[in-house]
């Protein structure tokens, strides 16, 4: 790709906006169209674009396979953990009403809002990582488990 300066420059210009848009879709998903799955795919698309243009090693420096693998698991832990937390707080599994609190009312999300925020965060993390790992598996022999 060294001989294609236009692609390199345009990519460098685009990636911040792709990442920003992913975060917008993720965190504005509570109020508009969007959510964890879509945001995860967009974020991963940014990473994959970087990998396509600057090479797999460069991408794996940004997102090491070992870390990405654990992030897959982390997302699920956040999701299911939210469910467990609501149970510990006295509600049913994933009953977000149990997440009501009185810290900085109006500033910090609470109740249903907080619940869906956490769950979508988990979804976003897992989807980003899974998409990236799929790219790693196709792109090189250096697969997710380091062989």
């Amino acid at each position, binding site marked *: 790709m060294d001989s294609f300066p236009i692609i390199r420059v345009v990519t460098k210009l685009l990636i911040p906006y792709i990442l920003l848009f992913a975060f917008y879709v993720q965190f504005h998903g509570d109020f508009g169209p969007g959510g964890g799955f879509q945001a995860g795919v967009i974020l991963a698309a940014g990473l994959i674009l970087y990998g396509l243009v600057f090479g797999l090693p460069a991408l794996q420096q940004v997102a090491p396979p070992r870390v990405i*693998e654990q992030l897959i*698991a982390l997302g699920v*832990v956040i999701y*299911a953990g939210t469910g467990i937390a609501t149970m510990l707080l006295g*509600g*049913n599994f994933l009953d977000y009403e149990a997440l009501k609190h009185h810290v900085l009312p109006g500033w910090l999300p609470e109740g249903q809002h907080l619940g869906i925020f956490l769950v979508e965060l988990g979804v976003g993390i897992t989807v980003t990582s899974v998409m990236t790992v799929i790219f790693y598996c196709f792109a090189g022999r250096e697969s997710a488990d380091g062989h």
Partner: protein
Amino acid sequence: MIEHLPVLTIAVPLIAAPLCVFLLNRTLVYLFALAVCWATFGMSILLLDQVLESGPISYELGSWPAPYGIEYVVDYFSAFVMLFVSGIGAVVLTYAPQSLNDEINPSKHYMVYPMYLLCMTGLLGICITGDLFNVFVFLEISSLSSYALISLGRSRRAPLAAFQYLVMGTIGATFLLIGIGLLYQLTGTLNMADMAMQLADDHDSRTTLVAFAFMTVGLSIKMAVFPLHTWLPNAYTFAPSVVTGFIAATATKVSVYAFIRIVFGIFTPQFAFDEHALDTFLVVFSLIGIFVASVAAIYQGNLKRMLAYSSIAQVGYMLLGVSMHNLDGLTGGIVHMFNHAIIKGGLFLVVGCFALRLQSVRLEDLSGAAKTMPLTALAWVLGGLGLIGVPLTAGFISKWLLLTAALENGYYLVAALMLASSLLAVVYVWRVVEILYFSEPSEAAKSAREAPWSMLLPTYALILAILVFGVWTTYSAGLASEAASSLLGGTP
């Protein structure tokens, strides 16, 4: 916490699976997964206990009332199936470490346990959920994790077998989803009980029939009913022994469970059997399946593949029971899910012991192995008797019930064919017994040692269960009959 038991049975293995990835030590991961499996088994026992005491339990996820939210329903049938799925899961995982060490590259172990837990989560979820779309989601969770587990097999053909299963399984799941979509469009609900009520006065529409057809064919693929069974022999043969043991004992049974739920819980037997003659098709395909698969089993040179074909035949018996749609028949079908789970689970664990010590499960390498591995060989004999359906084994109970039901319905030909098919089972089981006990020992068999206790004990736990449940049927046939009578909507 006791009121959260239904969801904990699913949530605990679900959250334990990703946690396994963070535990870097291989022994630690195993012990953690083992503890979770046994805890899940314990929770299933408690659930069954609650159901027996106070009737079906309903749990609303996120406190959204049914039919709008997802509802978990535990009744006799689901508690019964969850009990043996989680029980087999716990026993097989107890058996696992040495066999996995031998068959799977150690660097992949930390992935095996999460997949195993996810597979169990999916299977249990299919049983517990009262929401039709949720059934599909859990079916996908269990299927995807089982594809991954199968592809870990030692042979280079394992990934190909997993891929074949993936293609067929995805078609099956898609068909199921199409059916669910049509029903949702028709009724506007996904809750199974609610859907059944809405459908009760809309049985004539073509949409219902198409949905029914899609779901039947989709689940038939997952159940490995005769002409749609082609994915099964390769998948079971090339998967690691532990994985085969778990999946063969549970996965097809849970698909049968989903099928029974859909036919009896949503569409009603009148619609399926009286108006649309599903029973005729089921009887014909089950019987052809039983004979074709049993004959195929006789000619296999690989022990695992032989048992895989036998599994296809056994699914035929379960569906025969379903197609009788009388109390005895349905009881026989349901109890055969349980009996076959312990029989086939036990036999595949025996095969795993042979695989560990002889490094092969081809019949010629097994010859004479009874001299060096007497306990393992004895376990095969006992499990084989169960598979044939000899009195005093669990297999007899289910075949007896099926036979009674067939005679009750006046299906004399079916009854005769069922008896004849048992003789085929005698042939393939005896063929292995003869090779084990009466042939000259092969090179591998001469130098083999008895399988380690850590594997023999779980194997014998299942093998002895076959004998125990052959004489003591309170918790197998008794529960199955409760489940069947509640499915048929009457009191026994």
